[in-house]
């Protein structure tokens, strides 16, 4: 589904990714771990097509096409979803309206018709239950005044609704207490399917107790320096990143 080959990317002329390789197939869950400033968020943003990043070398092929040629919204419409580390607030934009517009944009891209109001209401309520999101939050402005945990659950709700082919979770565990973490992880696990791939980006092993990855990759200094199974994550937790990077532990 996704092949990243020798990816070099920079922001403000500062090189961050320095030859990253990664292949992700449908049905797989990959965890990307790494110390701070190793390029984890850069990878997420480059995949989603955020402005400001410059790809200087290498390629990303998604479903057989050159991903780097597609604008952000087109990538979203073709099934790439990024659960953000810091979901932004959209004051005045009703959450339900936002969710419906978003779903319809993606349905249209799939050649489907807009969802009717009743079906949408039923669907969104069902998905909200899945992530234990208070229905009241659906009527509020997007993320506005939401707690950290509510914002993250709102992200997973969107993911459940949009049914992406490739979901990227960027430090979804950051700022979550253990209960919220469990709820979010349950939501994510419910979405695991043979058709869907996931990339879980995290600093800590903790999240991987709940979302079990098929593969674990360690990202440091802009490259994947080690790949393994979830056992690798455990070892990292015990020994720290310094164990592999050879430098000071992050």
């Amino acid at each position: 589904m996704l092949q990243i080959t020798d990816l070099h990317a920079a922001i403000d002329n500062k090189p961050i990714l320095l030859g990253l390789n990664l292949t992700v197939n449908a049905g797989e869950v990959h965890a990307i771990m790494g110390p701070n400033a190793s390029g984890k968020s850069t990878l997420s943003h480059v995949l989603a097509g955020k402005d400001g990043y410059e790809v200087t070398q290498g390629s990303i092929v998604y479903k057989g096409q050159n991903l780097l040629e597609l604008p952000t919204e087109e990538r979203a419409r073709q099934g790439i979803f990024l659960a953000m580390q810091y979901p932004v607030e959209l004051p005045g934009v009703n959450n339900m309206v936002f969710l419906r517009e978003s779903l319809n944009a993606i349905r249209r891209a799939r050649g489907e018709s807009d969802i009717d109001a009743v079906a949408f209401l039923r669907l969104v309520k069902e998905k909200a239950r899945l992530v234990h999101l208070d229905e009241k939050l659906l009527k509020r402005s997007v993320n506005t005044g939401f707690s950290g945990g509510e914002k993250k659950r709102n992200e997973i709700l969107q993911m459940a609704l949009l049914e992406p082919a490739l979901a990227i979770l960027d430090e979804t565990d950051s700022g979550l207490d253990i209960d919220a973490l469990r709820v979010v992880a349950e939501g994510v696990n419910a979405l695991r399917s043979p058709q869907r791939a996931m990339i879980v980006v995290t600093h800590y092993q903790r999240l991987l107790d709940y979302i079990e990855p098929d593969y674990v990759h360690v990202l440091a200094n802009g490259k994947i320096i080690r790949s393994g199974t979830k056992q690798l994550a455990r070892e990292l937790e015990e020994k720290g990143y310094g164990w592999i990077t050879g430098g000071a532990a992050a």
Partner: protein
Amino acid sequence: MSVLPQDIEKIINSSYEHGFVTDIDADTVPAGLDEAVIRLISSKKQEPQWMLDYRLKAFAHWQTLTGPVWAHLNIAPIDYQAISYYSAPKSKADGPKSLDEIDPQLLETYKKLGIPLEEQKALAGIAVDAVFDSVSVATTFRTKLHEAGVIFCSMSEAIREYPELVQQHLGSVVPYKDNFFACLNAAVFTDGTFVYIPEGVRCPMELSTYFRINEAKTGQFERTLIVAEKGSYVSYLEGCTAPMRDENQLHAAVVELIAMEDAQIKYSTVQNWYPGDTHGRGGIYNFVTKRGDCRGDRSRISWTQVETGSAITWKYPSCILRGNDSTGEFYSVAVTRGKQQADTGTKMIHLGRNTKSTIVSKGISAGEGQNTYRGLVRMSPRAENARNHTQCDSLLIGDQCGAHTFPYIEVRNPSADVEHEATTSKISEDQLFYCRQRGLSEEDAVSMIVNGFCKEVFNQLPMEFAVEAQKLLSVTLEGAVG
């Protein structure tokens, strides 16, 4: 950085939708202003002597005045002698009796503007008094309103047919000495709308007027007077567009509202005058004095405005809360883009006891637009327990625009309660990225964020108008994004 500079480019380059010029013979007075011109206007309109006297008094006073300079606006000097003060479509001379007699081109113009002139469209519940340049050419639904006792006609007609009502109220809220532009208007106003709602009557439909400046180099000086007697209710909609012209055109209107005991007036405006080209050439100078007098106890006046056009807007729809327990409201969305400038806001003058006012102002600036909120809340000594709540929000799109807020608060009664909240925000790249990552185009994202920002004001508009306002906003910010 990435999207925003292009956005602004696009905003600037998107063309004005209503920029067509209607080609009809017009009866235009040569440029210039002196007593003779005022006498000519008055005689062309077959006005009574008292009206002419009023105009001449105003003109004499106007000559002693100079234009205001306190607004946060950059205005090129205006040559008042270079403007023609009267223009009427020629066919008016014979006086059209029905729609069939009206110049088909005129009707075509209205059709392009989407004005529901045809009776079947008017059946939707909107009665239209269309002002084309200076003369009101068509009035629909007069009969039905007449049955309810409502008077809804052009100001010229009102002066001829209801002189005592006009004489009693005209200038009683905005006296001719009020300010430079109001004084000019009093001297040279050519037409406008008169509405009278008798005691206890709830106006059976929304009243609506479209103004349109067509003739090149003509100023439009319309005069609107709405009187709502005891216990009556009226909702009035005003929509404005103007064709594209190179030179600046002057628009100096006066609107007076009078609400007696328990009466309610809702006045909504969607203003989309030509804003000028990318270099700031042309466009309407919109200098308008709008004021409502809550004369009776428990009366209520609401102003709702959506201002997206004009090169320069200078406008402060205000309420004088004279009656005890009266209420004044001001809901505003003002958009400036390109080189547009707006200095707009309101005045809430609390005179009576337990008077209440609400101000919600939303300013949106894009391109090199400058947007200023200027508001006055005055609690006079006998305004016991008066309350005001002001909320003033600015939204910036791009980094070359400006938002300014000048709130004036004067409290002379210790029991008064005044609240002021203000925010300034920017549509951030992160917000746009977030929306796009969810499959929305940039254009839809901006439109969604802007509409969300304006929601409180749009909620105040009558249904059809709210939809129109939303569309207008989308059109205005169209190309705001790639």
